[in-house]
């Protein structure tokens, strides 16, 4: 839930920024609308944000029909449709039956309520659901309700038919029916679902069914404006369509289209909102009847053609002005990629001031790095309005990229689009001309960096001083198993006087995408990995620091005039690594204090703030005796330490082991594997034996080995081992191994932590770092828990969505 809070915070910050910049949460200032202009912030603007694609909201017949219905039936008819419906409903549903070629139709107050009415009723307990990754959130919301009933909900990559078929084959033996849920036209990028291919799968697999939300396709496409889905292929007997009347249809409301009378009856009688929610009101119903009549007349084709001409002209203009359009389609929804929110914010601010209102397509509707300018075209736009807007958009786009020193190739990369040749040539010239006062130094190994300088940045921060990193490099390179190989990259940014402004390092490695998920989710994912292979739901990640280091990995001189520019150099560097290693994400991590300025800075550069597990440390070792130390603990912790740790202390013998034998190290490794097997709180790949071998012989590492004095077992092997790193006055407990068969009688885990405290004291350390997880155990020993956060940028969210699905299912099952 902690990360859900982070999610809300991120969305809140984006919304607040957009609102402050005058591009969101706006209100029109017009007393009356006249065509497609609206007044915002005292500026008359052409509205390029309307989904009323056919401009029917100003049609006199529809307006008069609404007025007439209100005059006849009042402003509302307040009764559930389960009891009684206004007669206009019957008239409207008759007209829709004609529009949808005799299929069964049910009018609902909104598309969202339509999904909530239909999906839980249509999908049975022994069915499974597959969601398209980009299906509208209202469909996802309704599908999430199914999880409470234990229904299997899966996900496929956007429009990936190969993956869909694989899932159908996989699920058909386990479930009665398989439902695929998708959009007809997708609301952000405006691309369409491959309806013909989906129908081919419906024909091929008997158990396969299709539920499609065609909100943005209704009226604009198809015979009698029946929508994009119906335009692509006739109604399939295993297909349910949901359409919106609040877009091109221009009246409010929604319609569900069923192939069978039974399905219609079931949803009409049992769909939640059909029983408990209010109906569409007379004004909307009257308007909808009038609009439906227009749809049933030849006039609809003229309206569609007008819109189509505008779409064609817009595509042509966007192409001519060289803007990066994501998905060139025939739909009225356009998305020009800008990649970063700060670029999008600035372009839209300029456009709004120039009198063009467009939308910012931003997180959570799209990944933060895939921010863009989303705009819609309606029949009411003139070519001149369209060209003027595109011309200004192109001007603002180019101007903002120059102002922000942001290369257009980054936008093409973010959207995985090939770079147009002319842009490539232009970029080459620009990069040759680019000059900066900052000097970026990058290194592929710590051996290339001066030891004293590196240690001056990171000494005492954790196990990533020069020696610590050398050991990691030796361990995680040149291994036979590619999973155990990491890429190491070091960055130092200096000013013109050679003074370091920023330093850090990155490791790029394959990591488990559920690494930060709660144990229960990782448990479920690990079960799936047994079947799908160990790299299932894993991806390469560019990580500030490494999976084995903890602490402040960023050295930044914030007093330096160019610190922000240095940070931007770091962002560029990590983006280059992302491309170089074909990784999926970048994570900047272990930031301890909340810093609004830094949050904003990261967010503007396409990073989302995310909470990380708390990290623990003990500071201050000025106490003399154990009793003095105990006095520093709470009474409850004191009781715990006395009863569970000090009482057992006399059974143990603790040694600092040097020059360990191979068999000893092998035993330590076995102890480590026992802990690893029992802990999924921070789910990583199992560390290689080579690591422990290297640790045992490293200068700055200490191995504390705990044995039982009167061990009655035959082998008498040590029962716990803890690997600690010494860096200046800081001592870090990094790995632990425990014989769990001794846990009940001797509690070796707790004893090992306690012995580390004693050792840190003995060595005269100021600080003991205890790492992540096992919060309660560490707090009882007087550790301070430090809330940490990171900033993450993800190219492809698919794996995380799949894990999110598992998480929702787990949470719901737990709640039930």
């Amino acid at each position: 839930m902690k990360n859900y809070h982070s999610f809300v915070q991120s969305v809140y910050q984006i919304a607040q920024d957009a609102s402050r910049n005058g591009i969101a949460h706006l209100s029109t200032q017009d007393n009356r609308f006249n065509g497609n202009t609206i007044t915002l912030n005292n500026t008359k603007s052409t509205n390029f944000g309307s989904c009323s694609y056919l401009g029917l909201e100003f049609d006199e017949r529809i307006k008069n029909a609404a007025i007439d219905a209100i005059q006849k039936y009042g402003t509302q008819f307040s009764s559930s449709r389960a009891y009684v419906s206004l007669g206009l409903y019957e008239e409207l549903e008759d007209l829709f039956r004609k529009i949808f070629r005799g299929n069964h139709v049910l009018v609902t107050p909104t598309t969202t309520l339509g999904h909530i009415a239909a999906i839980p009723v249509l999908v049975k307990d022994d069915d499974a659901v597959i969601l398209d990754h980009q299906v509208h959130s209202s469909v996802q919301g309704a599908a999430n309700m199914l999880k409470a009933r234990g229904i299997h909900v899966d996900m496929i990559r956007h429009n990936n038919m190969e993956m869909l078929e694989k899932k159908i084959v996989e699920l058909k033996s386990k479930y009665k029916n398989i439902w695929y849920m998708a959009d007809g036209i997708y609301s952000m990028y405006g691309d369409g679902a491959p309806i013909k291919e989906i129908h081919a799968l419906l024909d091929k697999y008997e158990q396969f069914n299709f539920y499609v939300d065609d909100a943005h396709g209704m009226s604009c496409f198809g015979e009698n404006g029946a929508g994009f889905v119906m335009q692509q292929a006739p109604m399939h007997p295993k297909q349910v369509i949901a359409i919106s009347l609040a877009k091109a249809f221009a009246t409010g409301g929604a319609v569900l289209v069923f192939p069978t009378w039974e399905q219609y009856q079931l949803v009409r009688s049992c769909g939640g909102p059909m029983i408990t929610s209010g109906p569409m009101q007379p004004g909307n119903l009257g308007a909808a009847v009038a609009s439906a009549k227009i749809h049933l007349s030849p006039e609809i084709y003229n309206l569609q053609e007008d819109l189509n001409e505008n779409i064609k002209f817009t595509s042509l203009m966007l192409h001519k002005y060289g803007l990066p359009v994501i998905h060139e389609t025939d739909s009225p929804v356009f998305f020009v990629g800008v990649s970063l929110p700060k670029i999008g914010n600035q372009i839209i601010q300029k456009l709004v001031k120039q009198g063009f209102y467009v939308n910012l397509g931003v997180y959570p509707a799209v990944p933060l790095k895939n921010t863009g300018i989303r705009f819609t075209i309606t029949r009411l736009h003139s070519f001149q309005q369209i060209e003027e807007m595109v011309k200004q958009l192109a001007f603002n786009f180019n101007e903002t990229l120059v102002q922000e020193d942001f290369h257009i190739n980054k936008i093409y990369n973010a959207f995985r689009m090939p770079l147009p040749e002319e842009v490539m040539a232009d970029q080459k010239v620009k990069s040759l001309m680019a000059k900066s006062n900052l000097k970026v130094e990058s290194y592929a190994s710590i051996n290339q960096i001066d030891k004293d300088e590196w240690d001056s940045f990171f000494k005492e921060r954790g196990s990533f001083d020069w020696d610590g990193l050398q050991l990691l490099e030796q361990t995680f390179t040149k291994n036979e198993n590619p999973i155990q190989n990491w890429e190491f990259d070091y960055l130092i940014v200096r000013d013109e006087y050679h003074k370091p402004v920023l330093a850090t390092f990155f490791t790029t490695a394959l990591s488990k995408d559920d690494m930060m998920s709660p144990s229960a989710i990782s448990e479920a994912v690990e079960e799936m990995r047994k079947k799908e292979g160990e790299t299932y739901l894993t991806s390469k990640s560019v990580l500030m620091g490494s999976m084995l280091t903890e602490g402040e990995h960023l050295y930044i001189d914030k007093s330096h005039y160019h610190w922000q520019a240095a940070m931007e150099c770091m962002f560029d560097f990590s983006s280059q690594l992302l491309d170089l290693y074909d990784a999926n994400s970048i994570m900047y991590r272990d930031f301890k204090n909340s810093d609004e300025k830094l949050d904003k800075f990261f967010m503007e550069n396409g990073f989302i703030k995310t909470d990380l597990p708390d990290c623990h440390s003990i500071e201050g070792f000025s106490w003399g005796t154990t009793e003095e130390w105990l006095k520093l603990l709470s009474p409850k912790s004191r009781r715990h330490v006395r009863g569970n740790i000090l009482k057992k202390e006399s059974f143990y013998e603790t040694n600092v082991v040097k020059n360990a034998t191979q068999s000893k190290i092998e035993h330590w490794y076995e102890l480590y594997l026992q802990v690893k097997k029992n802990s999924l709180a921070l789910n990583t790949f199992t560390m290689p034996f080579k690591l422990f071998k290297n640790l045992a012989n490293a200068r700055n590492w200490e191995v504390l080995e705990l044995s039982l004095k009167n061990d009655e077992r035959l082998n008498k092997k040590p029962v716990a081992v803890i690997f600690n790193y010494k860096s200046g006055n800081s001592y870090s407990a990094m790995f632990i191994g425990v014989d769990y068969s001794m846990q009940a009688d001797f509690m070796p885990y707790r004893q090992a932590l306690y012995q580390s405290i004693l050792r840190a004291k003995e060595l005269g350390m100021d600080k003991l770092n205890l790492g992540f997880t096992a919060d309660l155990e560490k707090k009882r020993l007087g550790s301070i828990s430090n809330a940490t956060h990171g900033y993450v940028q993800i190219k492809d969210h698919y794996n995380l969505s799949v894990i999110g699905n598992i998480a929702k299912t787990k949470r719901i099952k737990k709640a039930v």
Partner: protein
Amino acid sequence: MELTLAEFACFNLKSKQQILNYKGNYVCSMVLSDGNSLMLYTMNGNFITALKSTKTGEVVQIDSVVNKDILYLFAEKLDLAGFVN
């Protein structure tokens, strides 16, 4: 932004008229023998004609490739025959 003739040709009559109205330069018009009028425009260095029905007052045809003879007639009307060869 200029449109090529091929791009212009992709649009329907109503759209072509719209484009002509804000991108084209009206040159002159003449009445044909059937009473309809033919208007001459230039756009992006090309000649374009629009045929207007006298009965309805609406443009019924727009051609981006102009017949040479028609061009001569316009040239004569403008007293520019010497320039058209």
